[in-house]
């Protein structure tokens, strides 16, 4: 199956290794990713704070481009995913927002393509089995906790998830490639990335608690599927030295396509976990 792909602004900056490992994993599984034409910034965690319409209009333009491309859309960045899903929800609910988006962007949402995070994608039938079949290097020495944070799961009316409090597919994916995924109670707590600019100490307090709890659970790393969670946890954990891995890096390592360049992009070096 081939997909449309919306990498988002961080794919070429702070989330370089997230983009590179996502592309590597999909290509190894034989699923092509085609970048949607001329995509724009989704508004991040900022636009909706300042203006309701800008917060919907920016992601809605990407939704319109993806619909024209005609394939289900993969969005690895959790923030981009949540914003595009919010625009989709607004279009589907109808009302004033939908009418204005329709007029300004000259498009009508027909619901013909699905908008998927990597968590949604892993939950699709056959995807985890497909991964299992391609494992070259089972990660039997790797012990992790999976961390979902906010934007991949909440709010329910936008993500449409049956479980917002206890999603489990990242753990299932880690187990499918031979790693040990441990239980912990902090998988959907917030890392406070929004506070990183202006109140770095507060973001550090939230991240440090998560890193401490991951260590207490016995994990050697936290596995995430969000660029903001990754950089915030990697930079702001009070020197605990806990690597923060993208799910696609874990999968890529097991599929035998990991690159040293991925590990070099991290603040807390994860390369020792894959020797």
């Amino acid at each position, binding site marked *: 199956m081939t997909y449309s792909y919306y990498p988002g602004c961080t794919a070429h900056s702070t989330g370089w290794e997230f983009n590179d490992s996502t592309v590597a994993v999909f290509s190894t599984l034989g699923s092509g990713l085609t970048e949607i034409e001329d995509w724009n910034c989704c508004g*991040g965690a900022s636009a909706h*704070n300042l203006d309701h*319409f800008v917060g919907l209009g920016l992601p809605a333009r990407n939704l319109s481009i993806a619909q024209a491309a005609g394939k289900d859309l993969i969005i690895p960045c959790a923030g981009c995913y949540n914003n595009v899903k919010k625009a989709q929800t607004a279009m589907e609910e109808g009302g004033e927002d939908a009418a204005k988006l329709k007029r300004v962007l000259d498009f009508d949402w027909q619901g013909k393509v699905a908008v998927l995070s990597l968590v949604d994608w892993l939950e699709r039938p056959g995807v985890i089995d497909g991964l299992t079949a391609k494992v070259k290097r089972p990660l039997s020495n790797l012990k992790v906790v999976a961390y979902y944070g*906010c934007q991949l799961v909440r709010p329910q009316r936008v993500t449409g998830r049956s479980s*917002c409090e206890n999603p489990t597919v990242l753990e299932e994916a880690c187990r499918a490639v031979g790693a040990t995924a441990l239980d912990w109670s902090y998988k959907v707590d917030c890392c406070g990335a929004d506070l990183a*600019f202006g109140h770095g100490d507060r973001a550090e307090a939230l991240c440090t608690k998560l890193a401490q709890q991951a260590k207490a659970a016995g994990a050697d790393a936290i596995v995430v599927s969000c660029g903001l969670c990754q950089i915030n946890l990697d*930079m702001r954990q009070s020197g605990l030295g806990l690597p923060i891995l993208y799910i696609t890096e874990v999968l890529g390592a097991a599929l035998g396509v990991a690159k040293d360049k991925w590990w070099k992009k991290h603040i807390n070096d994860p390369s020792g976990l894959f020797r």
Partner: protein
Amino acid sequence: MHAFASEIQERSGQNLSRCYQCKKCTAGCPTVTWFEWPNHGVVRMIQRGLRDELLGSKAIWMCVTCETCGTRCPNGIYLSPIMDALRALAVEEGRPVPEPAVVAFHKAFVGSAKRFGRVHEATMLAEFMWKSKLFLQKGFVGEAVGGAKLFAKGKIPLLPSSVKGKAEIAKIFAESELKL
């Protein structure tokens, strides 16, 4: 219902009358420590029409839209769109904000998206630093070291990437109330 409560209901699409002050929103909030009043108190204040207090508060800028409160509300009230409505009103009315650095960041970020169609971290962060004057504050050295590490790892590109559809981006901003 107070006129302010009607205004917030209209903007947020949330039914404030359903709140029975069970405090579940407050119990799960990761940032309530930095609010002047707890989450359920914010709802009550809207019902009471305490407009100036709320639009000039830290609470509305310390909410990080994690959506935990809305997910857990037994009455289906989502506090995030309510907070969005309060923040947007404060910006529209040009209210003095007690969290200037947070607002400066959001404005620099959205300004970058408006300019290029995509966010360019290097110029966005420079604008944020300049406008927030954070470089004059304690703790800046630590932040600068973190930024330098990212730069050294090639995570902050020097050149921006632009979209072709700038006219469409401009139209979205032109149809909004936002002045940056």
